[in-house]
């Protein structure tokens, strides 16, 4: 299109305005994304300490060796993976269920959506601080569980016990994000052509048949998108774990990768190690994002 002579035409000159419009964002992303990620790769080969005046030494792959050989890193991988899976299953199934219920009830649809979404409006630190009080030994979580299980006066150690603190962080997260994913599903279901559903009803398909044979197959792209999004965002969880451990919860069980990176960089001041961990997290997220783009791509095929 834009070969030699055409460049001098009016349209060619106008199109070079495109550069003027994109120049600011190119400048921004080179400074605040490209440059730091290259620096992170470079730092991962150095024995760099925060606040140290000694010039850092090039140590090759030693940081990678240390990280991959440390029990602490693998504990974080376990913590992140447990969190991810523990959050994924309930969030995915519940948001799909709620979205189906909401979509089949046009009356009050907006109110349901607003109510379910309202926890997502809170910032994550506020969320964590509210739940911190609910999980207090004398708090509502204990009272509720004791009423249900008929075990008066027992402290379930929501923030102290190894497995309970993991469950607590998951509960907080599930409560916060459910509404968001429900709305994604409601949007997805809304795109299913009504005519198909009506035709099936006329042909005698009942609600269950319509769900399993029409809604779910047509919803596959949204499901793929939502699953990958849950994985990506739950791998980035930080605030709840940070606040809970600041308040005295044991670090080990909930030491997710982001928390470990933060503590390694700021408290141990070991930037090389922190860079290695953040690059490994980046690689994982990159893989998941690639899956997300594929999922979204298959979505537009269905739409067109």
């Amino acid at each position, binding site marked *: 299109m*834009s070969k030699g002579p055409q460049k001098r035409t009016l349209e060619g000159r*106008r*199109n*070079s*305005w*495109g550069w*003027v*419009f*994109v120049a*600011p964002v190119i400048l*921004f*992303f080179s400074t*605040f994304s490209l*440059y*730091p*990620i290259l*620096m*992170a790769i470079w730092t991962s080969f150095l024995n760099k300490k925060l606040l140290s005046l000694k010039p850092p030494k090039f140590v090759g792959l030693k940081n990678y060796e240390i990280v991959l050989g440390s029990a602490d890193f693998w504990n974080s991988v376990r913590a992140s993976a447990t969190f991810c899976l523990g959050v994924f299953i309930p969030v995915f199934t519940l948001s799909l269920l*709620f979205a189906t219920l*909401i979509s*089949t*009830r046009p009356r009050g649809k907006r109110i349901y*959506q*607003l109510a379910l*979404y*309202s*926890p997502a*409006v*809170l*910032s*994550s*630190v506020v969320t964590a*601080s*509210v739940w*911190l009080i609910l999980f207090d030994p004398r708090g*509502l979580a204990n009272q509720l569980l004791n009423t249900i299980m008929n075990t008066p006066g027992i402290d379930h150690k929501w923030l102290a016990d190894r497995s309970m603190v993991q469950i607590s962080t998951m509960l907080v997260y599930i*409560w916060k994000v*459910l*509404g*968001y994913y429900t*709305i*994604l599903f409601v*949007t997805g279901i809304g795109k299913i052509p009504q005519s198909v559903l009506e035709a099936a009803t006329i042909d005698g398909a*009942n*609600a269950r048949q319509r769900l399993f044979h029409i809604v779910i197959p047509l919803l596959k792209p949204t499901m793929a998108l939502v699953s990958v999004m849950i994985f990506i965002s739950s791998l*980035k969880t930080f*605030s709840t774990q940070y*606040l809970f451990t*600041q308040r005295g919860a044991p670090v080990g069980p909930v030491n997710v990768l*982001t928390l470990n990176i933060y503590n390694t960089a700021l408290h141990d001041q070991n*930037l090389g190690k922190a*860079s290695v961990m*953040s690059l490994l*997290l*980046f690689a994982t997220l*990159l893989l998941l*994002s690639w899956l997300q783009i594929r999922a979204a*791509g298959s*979505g*537009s095929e269905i739409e067109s």
Partner: protein
Amino acid sequence: MKATALFRPFERGVLAQRTGKTLGTAFLIAVCGIAVVPLVFMLGASLMPGSEVVSIPYRWIPEEPRWSNFHRALSGSDGKWAYLRNIMNSLIVSTTVASSSVFLASFGGYGLAKFKFKGRNTVFMGIMATMMIPFEAVMIPLYLTAVKLGLQDSYAGLILPFLTSAFGVFLMRQYLLGFPDELLDAARIDGCSELRIWRSIVFKNAGPAVATLAILAFRGQWDNLLWPLLISQREELKTIPAYIVRYTADLGADEGQMMAVAVIASLPVFVLFFTMSKYFLGGAGVYSGSKS
């Protein structure tokens, strides 16, 4: 007899369907209730003394509203009003980031959507690629650079890394792809300069996308904990999330006051939510809605 036998299955079906539907609605209402309960708890507890917040059995309505919680939450235990200062910081950072990201993203998004310049696809793919870089991966180099440039404990340090976002550029490009070319050409024929076309035609007509993105960016900063934790060491330059962490980590903190702090932190976003809920819900739908 025959007629009833013929009709019965049909009637039973309708009845079963109706009870099913009612049960579903009841379940949905219960779920919505559960979702809102912690919010109601936060509101109620913000007006109680700490001992009442963690009393057994818990009473949802404060015996005597304790408005002084809000006074104490703002003035702090040392009476230095640090929270008030931090709220102001959050407002400054969030509104600056919201306006700059809308401005820059619509500028860049317009360039990508409406001009066929050489290398456009490369630029677009490059920007999409940065969308996948998690902040955790770049925060340490960014921090070191910021320290070198002396941006610690400054608004510039808090704001600069978030001036715009790749997702914002993507959102704006998708939205502007559908902008009518005839309008742009008509303006050109009338002798409008390219910059003026962007300002007075494109930007002014991108309302929904601008609102969605502005809210997204505002909330992103209102919620941002990690970066302010790194870059702001001085109390005066902390933002709300960092203040809450410090306040909550203090084991002696009164639970009622803690909830008052939380309520104050949530007020601005809830005002936005109730006045512009369309763009909140739209913001959630953007992900699955704009990839066509």
